[in-house]
Each structure stands twice: as structure tokens, then as C-alpha cells.
């Protein structure tokens, strides 16, 4: 009475129906009733962590705070993005991972570096770029109202201690990579306490640079001078983060250092 086609479809549909019912039943069994039907997690060893990446690619890891993230840049690139643009334009093959997190302070960065995968990324890196310290010193602008030597000294000591920890953390997983730490600038130089704060920033930078000087492959990149004049033209509307012009100036400097080091390193 019914065509073969319909009979076939009906039987087929019933089979499909049974299959889906089975799936539903399995889900119920696994998630609602009793023991799930699979073993618990065993550390998978089937995929060995490959350490030999293709050597032609320059691997860059960026660490740090909102400056690394690119806050204030309309395009969201930050100095990291502009450095990568410049290197790509120079014909370099690069891979880039940006681990910057807004609001990061030195102790938090030291914590972040303890993560297994972050350590692995750092271990593979050829170049490490960092901005850290802005949040430790300025405390989101609070420091502006209290520039007494004692409170600055306390901040500074804590920062240097953490910076040391961060650097030795990097060296523990990677002895070869060049580390570029971008220094601080004074975003508040045209404010009331600006003069005093500029002095503090210079002192802060000096000490950080001294600390970095202990390691030949750790480079301190000053930014203070970049923002010394016309600071408002280079800052975002929040008067704290650089805008795209500011970032691109920072990037110019770092990119030049990276390409210079690469060329020098070639036989």
C-alpha cells in the first residue's frame, strides 16, 4: 500500500530515533545516575611536549601590565603590536604571544610566571619584552598625593625585590633569550607634584636599570625621555596610558634593538 520509499524512511527514522534515545540515556546515566562510564584523568603522555620549534621563527613573549596589553591604543595593539608590525615589515618571521594583563603589579607577575604553560612559553622564547612597575609605583594615581621619601622607598624596595624574582624566574627556564624591560615615564609631569614625581621616576628607573645590568642579556629600555616633552600629546585621555603615538615611539626603540641584536648575532 505504501511506497517502498516511505517504508524505508520510516524504518530509517525509527533507527535514528533509537540512536538518539541511546545518546540521551547515556547522558542521563553519566551525568545523573551513578558512576560515569570512563576513567578519571590520567596525565596524557601521548603527545610529548616538543621543545624543538622551527628555528627560523623568532619567538617573542610579551609580559607585563596594561602597557603590554595596549590599553589606550585605539587599535589595541600597544607597543607589542607595533614592534611586531615593524619586525614583520622588516621581513622577519615571528611568532608572538602577549601575556600582558591590565593592572598587573610585580608580585602578581611573579605569580603568573609560576604557571606551567607560561614557563613553557618563556622557555621557548627568543625575545622577552616586559613592562612592569607602573602600577607598583603610581598605585593608580595615589602616589601623586604622597611623594614622601619614606613611602616611595618602601614601594621601591618591594618592587626591586619582585623584579629580581621575576628575572631569576625567567633565567631559570631560559638562559638564552634577551629580555627587554621598558622603563617608566612620568605621565603626571604637568601635574602639581609633577616635578617631584619626575625625580622619583628617574630614581626608580635608575635602580631598575642597575639591577638589570647584572645580566648581559637583559636590556633596560628607557621611555622616560620619550614622554618628557609634549606629554599630553602622547598620552591617552586617561592621562596615564600612552596613545598610539606614544606606543609607536616606544615600539620604534624596542624594534630597533631587536633587529640590531639579530643582525649582530649573525655570523
Amino acid at each position, binding site marked *: 500500500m*505504501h511506497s517502498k520509499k516511505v517504508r524505508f524512511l520510516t524504518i530509517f527514522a525509527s533507527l535514528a530515533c533509537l540512536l538518539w534515545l541511546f545518546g540521551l540515556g547515556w*547522558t542521563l546515566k553519566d551525568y545523573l545516575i551513578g558512576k*560515569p562510564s570512563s576513567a578519571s584523568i590520567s596525565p596524557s603522555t601521548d603527545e610529548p611536549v616538543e621543545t624543538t620549534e622551527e628555528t627560523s621563527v623568532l619567538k617573542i613573549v610579551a609580559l607585563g601590565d596594561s602597557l603590554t596589553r595596549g590599553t589606550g591604543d585605539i587599535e589595541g595593539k600597544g607597543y607589542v603590536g607595533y614592534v611586531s608590525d615593524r619586525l614583520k615589515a622588516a621581513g622577519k618571521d615571528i611568532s608572538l604571544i602577549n601575556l600582558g*594583563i591590565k593592572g598587573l603589579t610585580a608580585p602578581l607577575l611573579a605569580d603568573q610566571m609560576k604557571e*606551567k604553560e607560561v614557563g613553557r612559553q618563556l622557555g621557548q622564547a627568543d625575545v622577552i619584552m616586559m613592562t612592569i612597575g607602573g602600577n607598583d609605583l603610581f598605585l593608580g594615581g595615589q602616589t601623586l598625593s604622597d611623594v614622601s621619601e619614606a613611602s616611595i622607598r618602601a614601594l621601591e624596595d618591594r618592587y626591586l625585590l619582585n623584579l629580581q624574582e621575576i628575572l631569576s624566574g625567567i633565567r631559570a627556564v631560559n638562559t638564552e633569550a634577551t629580555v627587554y624591560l621598558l622603563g617608566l615615564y612620568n605621565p603626571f609631569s604637568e601635574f602639581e607634584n609633577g616635578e617631584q614625581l619626575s625625580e622619583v621616576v628617574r630614581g626608580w628607573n635608575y635602580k631598575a636599570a642597575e639591577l638589570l645590568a647584572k645580566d648581559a642579556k637583559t636590556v633596560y629600555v628607557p621611555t622616560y625621555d620619550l614622554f618628557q616633552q609634549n606629554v599630553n600629546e602622547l598620552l591617552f585621555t586617561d592621562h596615564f596610558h600612552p596613545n598610539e603615538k606614544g606606543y609607536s615611539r616606544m615600539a620604534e626603540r624596542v624594534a630597533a634593538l631587536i633587529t640590531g641584536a639579530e643582525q649582530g648575532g649573525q655570523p
Partner: protein
Amino acid sequence: MINLVQNEMTKLMGKRRFMIIAIIIIVLLSMFTYAQSKEAESILERIGTTDWRTELQQQIVDMQNRLSSAGQWREQFQIQIKQSQYYLDNNINPAQPGAPTFIRGFVQNSAELFLPLLVMIIAVDIVSSERSMGTIKLLLTRPVSRFKILLSKYIALILSVSIVIFLFGSLSYLVSAVMFGNQGWSAPVLTGFSSQGGELDISGVRLVSQWQYIIQQFGLAWFISVVVGTLSFMLSILMRSSAAGMGTMLACLISGAILSNMVSSWESAKYLFMVNLGLMDYVSGSAPPIDGMTLGFSLSVLAVWMLGSLIVSFTVFMRKDIY
């Protein structure tokens, strides 16, 4: 009875609905696969490596950065970060490239709205079209009880839903296998995350093979579609015009999608069926729309709605005057 069901299947086939549904699925699939391959390309360009660990680590950091400005999505982000971190720490790739991974994501995203819409195409005029075309009189003058007639229609509907889900699965497999390759069926998937009060509970987490996970997903998708189908079936009896039934059902589904994003403070909304359609989210471990909702709870709410609408359907259909 079997004859009656086959009779209904013949009618459904005559309407060529399955063809339309298949075409819709193929068009959408080709857009999604294309979009996904584009996305993979752009990530490759941005990060410069195909190492999934680098990619996942970058995603985690990106989410951490969005946390501070996430507002109401904060909890969702936090759970997602912890989940990704868990994958990373256990060295398991959450998105092994290949057809199975694509299907997994596609079902996950379609189960709440897209699949129910496809089912609606079939279900919404299964009774009302007979009324508007006048064929219902012929059907009811047969020496078969009204109950049996309606039951055969309902069974035909369930069978069609199964076909739709099968079409969906097989087509997405075919298209994605061409685009991404066939590997990854036995890739491990972490499941059993549960999130309560914005905290990710990893005590129940376990590994399952991807193929098992996908079958379970399809089981859930089928259930959701059957529930939506049953509700549309009821509307098709209650309302004379198919367009009105379609509109009502659409409004419900869409309001569900919107409500799930904003009901977290209106607790009794959890008894609405459309808020409970996100069954997949329990399995994948994202936060439920309202605190305290679980897979069992949602399944029971949906089952109650389904039973209720079946009772309404049959009583109304058996008592109604047909003229």
C-alpha cells in the same frame, strides 16, 4: 497503527520539508566552516604559530584582561578561564582540529535555537494544515478513533525530528570532514565541570572520548527538539493558522535566548521551558542562567512541559468540533 504512521510520513514527504531543511543546513554549514577556517587563519597570523598551547594561553590572558570590564559576564569569564587553565594544565587540547571538534561546537551552538527552528518547520502545521486545507474531515470520517489519528501524527513527528537531527549530524560531518579532515574522533574531552555560584567545581571532571561526547550531545539535542516539537504540535492544534503557531513558538524561543542572559535575578523564571533549553551548557560546564539549575532540573522541567502539552493536545483534539 503502523499504516497510519506511514500515512503521515507520506504526507510529510510530499511536502518536501526535509529537502528544505537539508538545504538550510547546508547553506549555514558552508558559512560556518568558512568562517571557522578564516578564524584559524587570522589566529595563525596574529600569534604566528599553530601550537595550541600558545593559542590557549593567549586566550586565557585575553579573557583575564576582559574580566575587569566584563560586568554581568564576569562569572562566565571566570569559569571559562578556570576551565581553559584546567585543559592547559592537563595538556589536553580543547579544540583538536578536525570534523568531530567542529560538529561538537556546531551542535552546542545550534541546540538552543537553530535545531528547534528546523523542527518547527515540520511540527507547526502538522494538524493546522489539514484543517486549513479541509482534509481533516476526510481523515476523521475514517473508522479510526481520533486518539489514534493524533497519536500517529505525533509518532510521525518524533520520527521526523530524528530524521532532522540525523540530517544535521551527517551533513555537518560531510561538510566539515572535507574542510578540516576526519581526525580526532577519539580525542579526549574533559567533562563533568559543574559551576555553582560562580565557582568552577572540578571534583567530578573526567575524560571522555570525543565520539562519546558527541553522541551524548546529540541525545540532548534530540530531546530539546522533541520538546519544542511537542509544544509546536500543541499550538498547531490550538491555532487554526500555521503562521500564528509559528509566530508564537518563535517568540517563545527567542525570548528564551534573551531571558537566559538576564534572568539571573528573577528566580521563578527557571520554570519556563525556554530558559531550560541550554542542556548542553551543563555538560560543557558553563554557568547556568539561574543559580541552582542543574541538568536534572532542566530535564524534568522540560519533561513536565512536554507532558502537559501532550495532555492539552489530546484532550482538545478529541473534544473539538470540526467543521
